[in-house]
């Protein structure tokens, strides 16, 4: 018979994830930044930080799902760029496409590209990094079909999507991020689909032996990622006020940094969205800090690349198995 006095160690398991460290790190950052600049810890500043995080946050929630299952997606920046420019073009007065239809088309584009990524990766068996590096280039090229249109966004609904605030303090976009993070977190924790992602990422052979439909689930993760790219694309054009073919370039760099910093293991099997959320705010604050300190724009790029290398190094050191041998 079961002994009810058995101690379940759920809290202990949580404390072993990187999330508590990240929370601690962020508290230290807040203190340091506040000492360095009084304007850091203000509603005004945090409103800005969170609003700037919208696109990355949305993209991060999608790629987290992909990466927990052991996948990878470098094409997210391109997909959101494509969705952005296509939606912006469709919004031009001469076409007169109704807003709901634009939404449907936008989401269909993202999901379709995700589906293609997923099919190539699972059915042909190409490394996901190579696949999405290829589709990144292709999709970015396709964006330039509309390079000469330069559409501006006059659609009020889309304009409000990424720019409005609740009570002049909380950005709409923050609400989206929180809602999506909570939904995805619940899916990860409380559905078979979510748990199977961890199994696949942890040991794909075992997942197959356990009768899990690995390919189908992996494809779905890429479609989910594509879906969030669509939303991110709409937010991009909302916040920037126009559609340009280069929007979203390099977003994958920042999103990867966030997700890996948040404790999602490169290679899969590990990760939770709370960690990703804290990492999102950390990276957002660093970007914000660099703006406040007037770091030259090109140097920021160097810092961001260095941050990525740093977090993946930490990930490698933390998760290394037999790697130290050779």
């Amino acid at each position, binding site marked *: 018979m079961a002994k009810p006095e*058995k101690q379940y*160690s759920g809290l202990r398991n949580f404390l072993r994830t990187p999330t508590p460290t990240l929370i601690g790190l962020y508290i230290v950052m807040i203190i340091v930044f506040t000492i360095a600049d009084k304007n850091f810890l203000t509603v005004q500043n945090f409103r800005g930080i969170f609003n700037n995080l919208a696109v990355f946050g949305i993209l991060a929630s999608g790629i987290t799902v992909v990466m927990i299952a052991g996948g990878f997606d470098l094409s997210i920046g391109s997909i959101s760029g494509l969705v952005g420019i296509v939606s912006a073009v469709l919004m031009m007065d001469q076409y007169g496409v109704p807003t709901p239809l634009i939404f449907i088309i936008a989401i269909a584009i993202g999901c379709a590209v995700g589906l293609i990524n997923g099919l190539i990766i699972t059915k042909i068996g190409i490394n996901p990094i190579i696949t999405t590096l290829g589709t990144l280039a292709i999709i970015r090229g396709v964006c330039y079909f509309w390079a000469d249109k330069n559409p501006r966004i006059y659609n009020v609904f889309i304009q409000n999507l990424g720019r409005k605030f609740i009570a002049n303090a909380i950005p709409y976009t923050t609400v989206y991020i929180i809602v999506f993070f909570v939904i995805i977190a619940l899916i990860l924790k409380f559905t078979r689909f979510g748990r199977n992602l961890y199994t696949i990422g*942890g040991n794909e052979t075992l997942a197959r*032996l356990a009768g899990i439909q690995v390919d189908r689930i992996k494809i779905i993760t890429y479609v989910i990622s594509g879906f969030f790219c669509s939303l991110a694309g709409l937010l991009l054009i909302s916040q920037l006020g126009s559609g340009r073919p280069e929007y979203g370039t390099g977003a994958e760099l920042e999103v990867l940094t966030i997700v890996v910093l948040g404790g999602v293991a490169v290679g899969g099997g590990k990760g939770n969205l709370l960690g990703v959320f804290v990492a999102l705010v950390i990276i957002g604050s660093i970007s914000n800090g660099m703006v406040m300190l007037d770091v030259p724009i090109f140097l920021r790029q160097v810092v961001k690349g260095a941050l990525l290398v740093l977090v993946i190094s930490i990930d490698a050191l933390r998760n290394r198995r037999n790697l130290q041998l050779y």
Partner: protein
Amino acid sequence: MANNNGIVLKMDNITKTFPGVIALDDVSIELYKGEVLGILGENGAGKSTLIKILAGNYIKDSGSIFVDGQKFEIKNPSEAMASGIRVIYQELNSLNNLTVAENIFVGEQLVKSPFKIVDWKAMNKRAAEILNELNVDLDPNAIIGDLSISEKQVVEIAKAISKEAKILVMDEPTAALSEEETQSLFKIINTLKTKGVSIIYISHRLKEIFEITDRVVILRDGKKVGLRKTVETDANELVTLMVGRDIKEMYPKREVLIGETVLEVKNLNAEGFNDISFNLRKGEILGIFGLLGSGRTALVKALFGANKIHSGEIIINGKKANIKSPKIARDEKIGLVPLDRKVEGLALHLGVKENVTLANIEDLGKGFLINKKLEKIKAGKWVKEMGIKTPTLEQEVNSLSGGNQQKVVLAKWLESGSKIIILNEPTRGIDVGAKIEIYKLMQNLCEEGSAVIMISSELPEILSIADRILVMSKGRITAQYSRTEATEEKLLQSACI
């Protein structure tokens, strides 16, 4: 259900080949409802292949499978599982980042209505119940990565019995278990039997076969060589069937003068073992016996420089050696024939000659370039001397048989001039004929003045081949026996301390 005289599973004329080997040759078995059918055979006899076919992990080349009298083409693991076939694999397949409960219910998490939400509470509770039945004290919420090998094995067993099973296959389930844990497992097996579950029990430990099985099938070199009722047979008959020839012929006796100490290990400590001291003498075959997870593989890896040594000394030919990498071990004339030759021993897609010279590329000519002629001479010499059966020196080693692959690994170390050869389960996955050849090669080495360390979990093998046997348990040496002192019982007892 019981319309086929209680036969739940029938595998008829199953054949399966791999490049270079016939793993299963026309094997048929029948399994009755509520019985324990033992499958006995040495390493490489085809036991694992047979169950992998049953589990949908391999596709058979020919033959047919009937479950409850219905012909059943098992194409993948989910189909096998759907028809009630559960397998506990020998290789541990756990998800190291997840909890015990999750590992038990992998792919089939308990859910509750209305939205099929994963019911963690129920899962933890049910997991605790199953673990309790198995008489182990494990927290369902513990992370698998923190557990010992024997605990992981218990979780594997819990995983298999957590679901409604009709046919339960256990592939060497006790390889890492202590005597006590083994007895708990047998209790479970008996309970399952009374519930009408049929069990296929694979082992090469005779004692267990007699204790738990009703009937036993004996495989040798991929063929079925016998079927006995357990009560009607004895150990002698089973061993003779398994080995296929007279024991004396199988394990040739030898007379070798054992010389001075060549290797001395003093108070060695590293990950996986503690305070190990022993010595090895010229011309000697030193056996190391222990259960899975006893630290034997960790020990030889440390001796070979592949695992970091925390403290202690290794003295080779009277001189202290600082073995920090396999390269240094090689320079100290130590060679390692590893546990898994395909993963650790061979570059499978390179040729025989490349593999024979792999540990000694520097000597393939003067300067920067390889002298292709010299390479051929060197490789050709070993191929001839060791009787490696290969059509050409360029043949990919992948297509050689297990025995010939193992000889290539051994040749690699002889080519680099090794004087201390460590062999980790050297006869795993090779046929009986090749085994005898490997034993002979080991003995020749000793006659020529080398020293050999052999890890083996096959009792007849280690008892007949080794001059001296160290027994390891939980990372320590628990006993040492000379060849004359050692018996099966003594080894197993010392291994479970």
